[in-house]
């Protein structure tokens, strides 16, 4: 797919831009330019398309500022008469939002935004003993153990690089995507976003295990085998 789009709304950029979105042609026009400039640019682009434009669905995007319907009507007339396009419409609201989100994520990957990211993680070392309680506003990372009777509570995920034998409550903000991970997963009880599960007395394997919510129940799986984040296309801030 050819992508003529660019994020900058530079005045010196083209008055109209074309890209393929799904099965339709997306025409972004710069409403600050004169009608003639826009028409000229559209002619430029559509002449190159030749027969590809015939019967095509065209979406005209006047940008956020919006433009009088006159311009849209004018362009519709032009496109239908000269290039025999199938239909001409304005961009749907939802559709626009999705595209923006897509662009933002793509942009973020290119920027490596996590370089600027200040951490939401409470990182601790040591042992949480019986009667002690750790409260983390968001994620909790503990290099150490949680003894029976100890409690760890977090708004997001709980990662324990050691034994988990006490109580762990993750996703207290109601986030069902939260996970609880431990090297030796033997909790008394786990809770994720209001779902409760009684603990297991024996860890099933040598590998680290993690608990997560699936279809309204808490499921514990081998972390290495399940590899829940292995399929993400690029590193993402959680």
């Amino acid at each position, binding site marked *: 797919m050819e992508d003529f789009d660019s994020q900058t709304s530079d005045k010196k950029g083209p008055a109209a831009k074309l890209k393929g979105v799904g099965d339709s042609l997306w025409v972004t026009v710069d409403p600050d330019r004169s009608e003639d400039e826009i028409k000229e640019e559209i002619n430029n682009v559509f002449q190159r398309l030749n027969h590809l434009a015939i019967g095509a669905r065209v979406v005209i995007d006047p940008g956020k500022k919006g433009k009088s319907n006159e311009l849209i009507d004018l362009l519709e007339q032009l496109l239908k008469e000269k290039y025999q396009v199938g239909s001409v419409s304005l961009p749907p609201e939802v559709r626009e939002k999705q595209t923006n989100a897509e662009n933002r994520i793509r942009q973020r990957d290119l920027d490596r935004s996590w370089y600027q990211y200040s951490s939401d993680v409470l990182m601790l070392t040591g*042992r949480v*003993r*019986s*009667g*002690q309680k750790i409260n983390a506003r968001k994620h909790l990372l503990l290099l150490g*153990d949680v*003894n*029976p*009777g*100890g409690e760890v509570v977090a708004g997001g995920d709980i990662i324990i690089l050691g034994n988990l*034998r006490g109580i762990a409550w993750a996703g207290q903000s109601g986030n069902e995507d939260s996970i609880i991970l431990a090297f030796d997963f033997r909790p008394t009880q786990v809770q994720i976003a209001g779902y409760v599960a009684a603990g297991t007395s024996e860890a099933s394997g040598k590998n680290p295990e993690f608990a997560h919510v699936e279809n309204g129940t808490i499921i514990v799986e081998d972390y290495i085998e399940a590899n829940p984040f292995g399929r993400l296309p690029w590193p993402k801030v959680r």
Partner: protein
Amino acid sequence: MEGKIIVITSGKGGVGKTTATASIGAALAMENKKVAVIDMDIGLRNLDVVMGLENRIVFNIVDAVNGKCKVQQAAIKDRKIDNLFLIPASQSDNKNVISPAAMKNFCKELRTEFDFVLLDCPAGIEQGFENSVVGADEAIVICTPEVSAVRDADRVIGLLYAKSVLPKLLVNRIVPEMVARGDMLSHEDVVDVLSIDLIGLVPMDDNVVISTNTGAHLIHNKQSQAGKAFRRIAMRLNGNADLPIEVPRAKKGFWGKLGFKRGRNK
């Protein structure tokens, strides 16, 4: 030299704090140290009975802390061991009659008088615990190989650290046969959870009940395995820290040994 104050605590009741206090105190006194054992369980005193000194009580810890008598007056000399003294608890008062501040001052006084002071802490983590811990330099946490005792010991260890008292672990009432069968937590399991330094392992021993009821010292009983273990703990406290810790082993009978030699032991 300033004396050392050691609090003997557990959180859970009935794990052997009083027996351990009496035995370790007696063993330390046998090593030519001047030792005081103090019953902090005000309202439920036991240590005097275990040591067979209940008929000699005139003054008690409450009188001594609140300045109604001198330390020397409250300290009762043991019947058999010259260097061993008991300061009994009051049976009629409740725990609030001693304040932590007064107890701290009293501990300073004790340090000048004795080489070792062992405080027998009451069960629980309320005022009695606070009073016992406030003046202590070190703590011995007693734990039996049961999950409930481990849980309470863990809580107490957290509290001791918070008061910057260094805890050491004593695992009491180990039954080696049950550990071997897998019916009882091993001391490794206990240490694994509590993760503090071990000062001794004491096996289950019927002689403890006998000596408690007669008021005789357990460490004087040559047959007692528990008495031996307590003597070794006292040696460790008395500067011999490198003394290896003996793990209680299951005794094999004659036929068991024979079977083992013929390769049939299962």
